[in-house]
């Protein structure tokens, strides 16, 4: 089992979120990402965080698994935060020493930027955590199928994607095996300068390539032998069906999206400012 998912971060718990249709999850993730770019107020960020926590809880994921993906981009987040903090110069000055100026506006922008990035990454990682790569590929194929009208070879692309996904763990495993075998003969991969290291990888790369070509040949024969062709008449073994869960998920995220839009374009025009209602003087 571990082999199916060695690639990606899929975290199996068989929760209602995992069972959602991959297409629905893909679309809702897009909607969520779009929503994040409409957020302007702290209330919006709080709401998004709440939504995220609800989904994580429903998916029965440990919060660490989500934060792990944030850790991967922590450097970028910190970097952009620092740039923002020091380079925004308009608004009320909070701290000034020499040419370093930190303004109130800069602080707000920075906090919002960090929140935006963290929520974005966490949301996207939820998709990867609850959907297997193969489900994702199938979902993408289905979503892309209208492109067939303009002669995009969607089936071929999808087949290429599924095969690639299928063989990434295999290649990974094979690489490890070959590395082990060459290490057993005294090969050393982590000493010397960059050229020495690249050269040291040859005993791994050459067999890896040769084996991959052999495997590709065998796979092509096997597919041929079973009369594979990428015509439209092919049917699916596993047909994805929309269920009630998908509808509920859709309503939930669409509702969230609506509130974010209202928060941005409507509430303030009618004199409701939730941020100052919550934080008052703090802002």
């Amino acid at each position, binding site marked *: 089992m*571990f082999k199916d998912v060695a690639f990606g971060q899929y*975290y199996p718990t068989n929760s209602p979120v995992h069972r959602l249709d991959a297409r629905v999850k893909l679309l809702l993730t897009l909607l969520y990402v779009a929503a994040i770019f409409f957020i302007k107020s702290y209330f919006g960020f709080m709401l998004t965080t709440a939504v995220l926590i609800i989904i994580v809880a429903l998916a029965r994921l440990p919060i660490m698994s989500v934060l792990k993906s944030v850790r991967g981009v922590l450097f970028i987040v910190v970097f952009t935060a620092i740039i923002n903090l020091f380079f925004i110069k308009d608004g009320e000055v909070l701290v000034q020493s020499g040419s370093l100026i930190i303004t109130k506006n800069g602080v707000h922008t920075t906090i919002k930027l960090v929140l935006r990035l963290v929520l974005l990454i966490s949301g996207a990682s939820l998709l990867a955590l609850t959907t297997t790569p193969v489900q994702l590929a199938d979902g993408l194929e289905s979503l892309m199928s209208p492109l067939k009208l303009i002669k995009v070879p969607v089936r071929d692309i999808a087949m290429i994607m599924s095969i690639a996904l299928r063989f990434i763990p295999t290649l990974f495993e094979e690489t490890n095996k070959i590395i082990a*075998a060459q290490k057993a003969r005294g090969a050393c991969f982590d000493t010397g300068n960059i050229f020495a290291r690249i050269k040291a990888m040859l*005993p791994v790369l050459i*067999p890896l390539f*040769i*084996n991959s070509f052999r495997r590709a040949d065998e796979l092509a024969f096997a597919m041929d032998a079973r009369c594979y062709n990428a015509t439209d008449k092919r049917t699916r073994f596993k047909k994805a069906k929309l269920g009630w869960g998908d509808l509920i998920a859709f309503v939930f995220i669409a509702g969230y999206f609506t509130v974010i839009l209202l928060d941005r374009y409507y509430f303030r025009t009618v004199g409701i400012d939730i941020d100052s209602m919550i934080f008052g003087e703090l802002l």
Partner: protein
Amino acid sequence: MPAVEIKNLNFIYSKKTPFEKRALQDINLTVEEGEFLGLVGATGSGKSTLIQHLNGLIKLQDKKRSSVVVNGMSATDKKSLKKLRFEVGMVFQYPEYQLFEDTVAKDVAFGPKNMKLDKDEIDARVRRALEVVGLEYDKFAERSPFDLSGGEKRRVAIAGVIAMQPKVLVLDEPVAGLDPVGREDILSLVKKLQKEVSPTIIMVSHNMDDMARLADRIVALKDGCIVANGTPKEVFCDRKLIEDAGLDLPAATRIADKLIARGVEIPSDIVTMDALSAELGKALRSRITVAAKANDGVSEEDENV
């Protein structure tokens, strides 16, 4: 001093994730110098994981409690790791998929080169390794390893390990995917290697006939635990254990069991074909003598009448 000494070895793959998998559990194992140890067990029982500890390819997870020592060298010691790798030759499953050089001689020289031997010594070792595995140096040295037959490729790969002249040779299913003649060839090669190069052999195999014939001692793994450890006779005579561990009996033992069930008088601890034929010969001869005696009795009676 034993060649290999493993104490309290535990290993868990993907620790602390939902894919956590306990592959080894409290393994204690000693292999004496000059011994031929057969390692058996159903697929997934942890054999490959166990042997990769022997040359430090897999790091110990609990250094305080467990230890792996080969010829007096600890597998956790970073400084002697390289030396350990040359001391323990490891032939993986399908070793031919790891060939990479453009000539056979260069590929076999990869290990000795990493040992930083001088050129003459490397050449001598390559020559000898190829001869030992039964490939004529002059005929094969300059050929591409990728143009050889499966069995020849495997010999080249084994030669690549032998060229390091390891004291302990570990083989993970060395005959997988070969035809009967190729299998026999490789097996007798392994026996020969034990005499000429590496006195201590640890071999993983799913074939109980080979194990019964070759191994001095058999260790059986099940779900990461050692469930049997003894001579082939001791291990294979415990039918219940063999079944529990998901293993086969050697063909000779199965035939012997059937014969015994039909009333042939042979011992029940037969594990090799040689022993079976010897015992059958004996049983047959004693039957003939009994029959002859009975016949004599009959003919005497006839005469009396």
